[in-house]
């Protein structure tokens, strides 16, 4: 219901041009990403791969409007992010973007249900509880809705995170090593669920992973090395 109107059109959903990121540290400026160009079309699935420290998370956070690039520009749904202020980006994230993190990132004080309701509540949706309940059922946690993250296992927490990511029916889903903290079996279950939901909701998926088989499930893969794209397919 909050998906972007552009979802079905063929205009690129993500367009990154000459993207670069520098950070200043105590030992001078550090270039962690440089001249990345990327175009992602609606309903694409893209895997970002690369060794640890190659800049995958950095790229993801730039694409997802979590951070601002030092050079270059990103447009989401045809909207240049540079034209938005932090609150504008927040609104965009809320309406059209979903997140899944390696370390789950659920709010510790909230129950599973409340965590899932949160994005809907943020945009004032009155039926947040029903929608959240439905999605929790969908991820197989209907009997754990009132447990806090501490009372859930890692796999369960990640399923709550998946429910939270899809509850707004976002146009794009960003996942940063969603299985990184899980054993391979649980990881597989999460991946399965992720792709199922993705197909159901026709979501564009951008995924960071070290896992070749997981990357193989995506239509496209790019490989980063020391902050630059070395290989695209």
């Amino acid at each position: 219901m909050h998906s972007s109107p552009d979802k079905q059109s063929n205009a690129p959903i993500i367009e990154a041009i000459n993207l670069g990121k520098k950070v200043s540290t105590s030992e001078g400026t550090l270039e962690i990403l440089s001249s990345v160009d990327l175009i992602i079309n609606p309903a694409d699935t893209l895997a970002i791969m690369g060794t640890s420290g190659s800049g995958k998370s950095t790229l993801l956070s730039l694409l997802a409007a979590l951070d601002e690039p030092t050079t270059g520009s990103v447009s989401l749904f045809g909207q240049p992010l540079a034209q938005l202020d932090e609150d504008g980006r927040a609104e965009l994230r809320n309406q059209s973007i979903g997140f899944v993190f390696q370390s789950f990132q659920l709010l510790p004080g909230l129950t599973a249900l409340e965590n899932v309701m949160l994005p809907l509540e943020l945009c004032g949706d009155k039926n947040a509880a029903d929608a959240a309940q439905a999605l929790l059922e969908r991820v197989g946690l209907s009997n754990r809705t009132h447990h806090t993250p501490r009372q859930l296992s890692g796999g369960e927490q990640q399923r709550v995170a998946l429910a939270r990511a899809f509850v707004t029916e976002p146009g794009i889903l960003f996942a940063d090593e969603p299985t990184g903290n899980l054993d391979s079996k649980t990881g597989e279950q999460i991946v399965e669920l992720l792709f199922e939901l993705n197909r159901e909701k026709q979501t564009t998926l951008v995924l960071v992973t070290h896992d070749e088989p997981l990357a193989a499930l995506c239509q496209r893969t790019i490989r980063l090395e020391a902050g630059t794209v070395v290989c695209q397919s």
Partner: protein
Amino acid sequence: MSELKLALRLLYRDGRSGELTILVLALIIAVTSSTAIALFADRLQQTMGRQAADFLAADMVISSSSSIPESWWKKASELQLKQSSTTEFSSVLMENESLLLAGIKAVTDHYPLRGHLKTATSDLSNPEQTKKGPATLEAWIEPRILSALKLQIGDTLRVGEQPLKITRLITYEPDKGGDLYSLQPRVMINHADLESTHVIQPGSHIHYTAQFVGNERNLVEFKRWIKPKLNPSQRILDIYDERPRLGSALSRAERYLGLSSIIVVLIAGIAIAMATRRYGERHFNATALLRCLGCKQSKIIRLYALQFLILGGSASLLGCLLGWFAQEGLFQLLRDLLPTSIASASPFSLLFGFATGMVILVGFAMPPLLQLKRVSPLRLLRHDLDPLPSSGWLIYGLALSVIGLLVWYYTDDLRMTFTVIGGGLFAASIMAGIVWLLIKSSSKSFGRLDIGWRFGLQSLSRHPAKTISQILAFTVTLVAMILSFSVRNDLLDDWKAQLPESAPNHFAINIFANDRTPFQKLLEGQQIQSSRFFPVTRGRLVEINGIKVRKIVSKESTGARATQRQLSLTSSTTPPDGNQIIEGNWWKSDNEAVVSIEQKLAQSLKVSIGDKLTFTIGSEQMQVAISNIRSVNWDTMKPNFYFIFPPSALDAFPQTYLTSFYLPPGKKDFLNKLIEHFPAVTLLDVETLLNQFKMILSQLTAAINYLLYFALAAGFTVLFAAVYSTLDDRIHNSALMRTLGAKRSLIKKVQLIEFTVLGFISGLLALAISELILSLLYNQLFGMAHQLNLLLWFLTPLAGGLFVGLAGYVGIRHVMDLPPASILRNL
């Protein structure tokens, strides 16, 4: 040794990563403020004590109606006490066919040992300070003698048979108190000339004083040695006995200083407790890791304890240094208000600041540290394994005992300590209960609120324990600040009320019945306000319930002093202003055989309503029953009486009248007129006393104001630190919420609401608790009545909400501009 190295290394790493900043900051604030206050209080007390000593012109004075035995002087010399003496008597001066009864005072060369004489030769408004009395064959006189006897400077004045040259006019005499001699115009002469005046005859009424200064220990020893040798006419005076009025102001100020210290220590303790708690939480994982790596529990404790000792030691050292500077700065600021010579700080106070720092650290940091010991290595696997609160009673008992010890040390008052601790405990549990109920009862109604309010309130109600502990901390800090503020206000108001601008500065006694109306007329003619005229009959209390008073009263008590001499008895149909009946009833008819007694005296004599007192008045005896007990405000400069009778009771006896009045400056000459018209009336000039008193109070006021600012500043800083130490979770949570699309304004609103509500509740509780403590405190410590302050009722919750809300808002704001990615990355 290797453990020390390891501890140092761990400490260094923590320090580098900024883990310790808040803890160190809180500790430095604590030590800085308690050092500064301890030093300041110490020096101020010494300085004030010194100044009070000025009023005696010595540290200690023996006052006597017979000359001081040679052996006493010798003993004083053995104890290396510097000495001087004064001999005072009345003598009639006759010059140029005018007569004047003057108070002669012969002083030795070292007089005054403390304080200064102020004298002038012509310009009275610009006197010189001297530390010496007149040389031989010189007389220094009070200016009004010149006009009364038509003399000029340089003329000769005969005192008894000795002609003396008038060389200076006295404008200020440090030890001119409110006693009988001070009412007569002063002539000061050198002790060496005393004999040749031939005024002193056997049987003359003479007042001798022996004055001493020296180090405290020797003075105390001297006092102990001399006490048993005193006869009933001899008294030892030191600053506290001699000036009960000043004494009470001083001791109140001292107590205020003590209170401020407790308050600062308490505030600092809370900050440290919060900071170590945060430290503990952040180190749970590290500890679990250490355990995993094979570290024993006891070793972990040793490691952390070592770190804390090193940390505490260096922070305390720095705090001491800063405290010293702060205190020095304070004295610089107060320079104009304080006496020129300020006592130097004792190094002991510095040491004390250091010790306070360490004690606070141990008391408040121990509980969270002990928790670390209980961290299970399993925590690495499961984060829900928070350490169980290890026997809470032991831990909070420890913190409480530390506070108790500190309070006890500062007040030296066990009852007060228990009042504070007991009250605190009681209040804390009530408070926790109320907050818990509030949270529980309100959480159901959140659903209907808008999202900002809902999130704000929900985050409070989700962690009741955390919320309660934060509210507790804010409340105690606020209570501390309120206490300091309102005690100071009431103290100052009280002082101001005691000494209005036109407080009576003269007493007139011995006004005969037929002089009363003309006397009053004369005053009114000059527009001089006087208090009412009290009839006075001199009499002596001799028996209580038929038993001789001498056998009942204990030595050196108020009762003893009141019964060894003739008392001024008065009569009245109504209780005089400033007198309050606290037991029994005022009489209805004027001819009952009853009496009203002052409360302190009643206590000292151990008498109560209905007891029969026998007085001798002249040659007659009179027995009356006590009908009521009055409290009297001795701090006002109005006439006060131990005993008040119904008017008819004293009618049969000779009566004189007594009044007090305010003579504005520049009308001094009117005194001569009064004396001329009513030679029998004795005038008592308390102006000097009053001015000295006012000066001291204004200095104390300034000092107390600065202390208040200091305590408030410490409170605010610590409140900020406390807010900051709770921000970790909130910052992470809000970054996450922003990732999910919450606008910054919403996050800010949620934070603002959360902290404001925290602050508001804390403010409400703080108000209730401080009112409770204040009423206890005022009764027991300051001897004043406590009145509710409506403004405080209005302001405190508001200020609490505003301030805590703002602190939280500012705290979260600086991370609001960081992209959420950078916050999430730090995990």
